[in-house]
């Protein structure tokens, strides 16, 4: 398929579909992440990206037959490999032998969080999650370094004229969005702080928060959104998130425990675990939301600059 736009639409459908798989396999947290990241924000970011690159794929000069053959052979080998694997849900599977029983049996006493996924993600495997947050932060910094738009002085008259045209044309969309955005932000906070008890956590909450801001930016114009959300402020927040996460680890290190061992944070180990998980989820939420907004602002801001340049050239 050469039409990149159709490809994005179909990949959006694929995101929705794979989240349905995860739901039917009882993996609530994964489905949640897929819903917010796979179907939501990545579709949006890809859309913004193709507005800069053009809508159709370049005609390829070579025939990718060799690649197809390699893919088919690898795929069939992988499928052949699955024949040796234990059956789905089998109690003898290696994955159910080593650490999983410990997580399931002891996490309630050791961490005291009802959602085992959260206790694995944020407590047992906190160092991995720290790595993920740093990767996201690095991605945001990379986009900032490569695409950072030259900031023009804010043109108040331009904003006003845009607002005027919008009020006439997209009244319904704007009013509905105005009613929905506070609710979306509230729901993001619910997801953030309810992660201990149900599906959710910092990653999902950050993405939902960013999606609300992106909705605002799309309907009310980039310049208006920039007036609401200061770009340097949000860059600061991305760094604060990583810093918060790392400093929790350093505090437990200074108190004579391992890196990111939260039991030391409070006199009662369980309360310490709760506090630690809350803090690092907050850090994750800050970083993810800020980085998503940074990426979107830089992509869309660059597009606006391009359009302005074309307009000036044609005039």
């Amino acid at each position, binding site marked *: 398929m050469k039409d990149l*736009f*159709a490809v994005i*639409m*179909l990949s*959006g*459908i694929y995101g*929705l579909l794979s*989240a*349905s798989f995860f*739901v*039917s396999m*009882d993996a*609530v947290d994964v*489905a*949640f992440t897929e*819903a*917010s990241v796979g*179907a*939501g924000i990545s*579709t*949006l970011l890809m*859309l*913004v990206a*193709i*507005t800069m690159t053009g*809508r159709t794929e370049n005609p390829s000069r070579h025939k990718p037959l060799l690649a197809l053959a390699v893919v088919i052979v690898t795929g069939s080998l992988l499928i052949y490999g699955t024949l040796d694997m234990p059956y789905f849900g089998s109690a003898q599977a290696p994955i159910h032998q080593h650490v999983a029983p410990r997580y399931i049996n002891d996490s309630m006493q050791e961490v005291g969080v009802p959602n085992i996924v959260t206790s694995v993600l944020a407590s047992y495997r906190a160092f991995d999650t720290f790595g993920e947050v740093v990767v996201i932060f690095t991605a945001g910094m990379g986009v900032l370094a490569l695409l950072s738009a030259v900031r023009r002085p804010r043109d108040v008259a331009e904003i006003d004229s845009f607002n005027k*045209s*919008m009020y006439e*044309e*997209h009244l319904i*969309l704007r009013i509905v*969005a105005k009613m*929905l955005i506070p609710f*979306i932000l509230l*729901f993001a906070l619910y*997801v953030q702080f309810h992660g201990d008890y*149900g*599906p*959710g956590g910092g990653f*999902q909450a950050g993405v*939902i928060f960013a*999606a*609300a801001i*992106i*909705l605002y930016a*799309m*309907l009310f114009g980039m310049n208006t959104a920039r007036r609401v959300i200061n770009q340097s402020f949000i860059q600061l927040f991305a760094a604060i998130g990583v810093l918060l996460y790392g400093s929790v680890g350093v505090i437990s290190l200074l108190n004579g425990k391992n890196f990111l061992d939260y039991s030391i944070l409070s006199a009662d180990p369980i309360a310490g675990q709760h506090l630690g998980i809350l803090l690092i989820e907050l850090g994750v939420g800050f970083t993810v939301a800020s980085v998503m907004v940074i990426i979107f602002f830089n992509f869309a801001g660059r597009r606006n600059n391009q*359009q302005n340049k074309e*307009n000036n050239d*044609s005039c």
Partner: protein
Amino acid sequence: MLIAATIAILVVMIMAIVRGIMGPTLYDRILAVNMFGTKTVLLISLLGFVMGRPEFLDIAIVYALINFISVIGVLHYSDASIFKRSDQQKK
């Protein structure tokens, strides 16, 4: 009855995919994706009841929101832009 409703929604989802792949115009594809999204919301809430885990409803809420935001995003950043006319008038 819950399972019957789930199967009905699955059938409708397949129909939406067919239209999304066939879709002669861009708008047909967007319409198919939008329909697919709302049906996914229903499917997830039904599955929550079938499997007896109603906390799935959180995911359904996220879907409803994300679906709306994606449709607006698609309409904004595509050839089908609803903002096109105002641009042309400016020129």
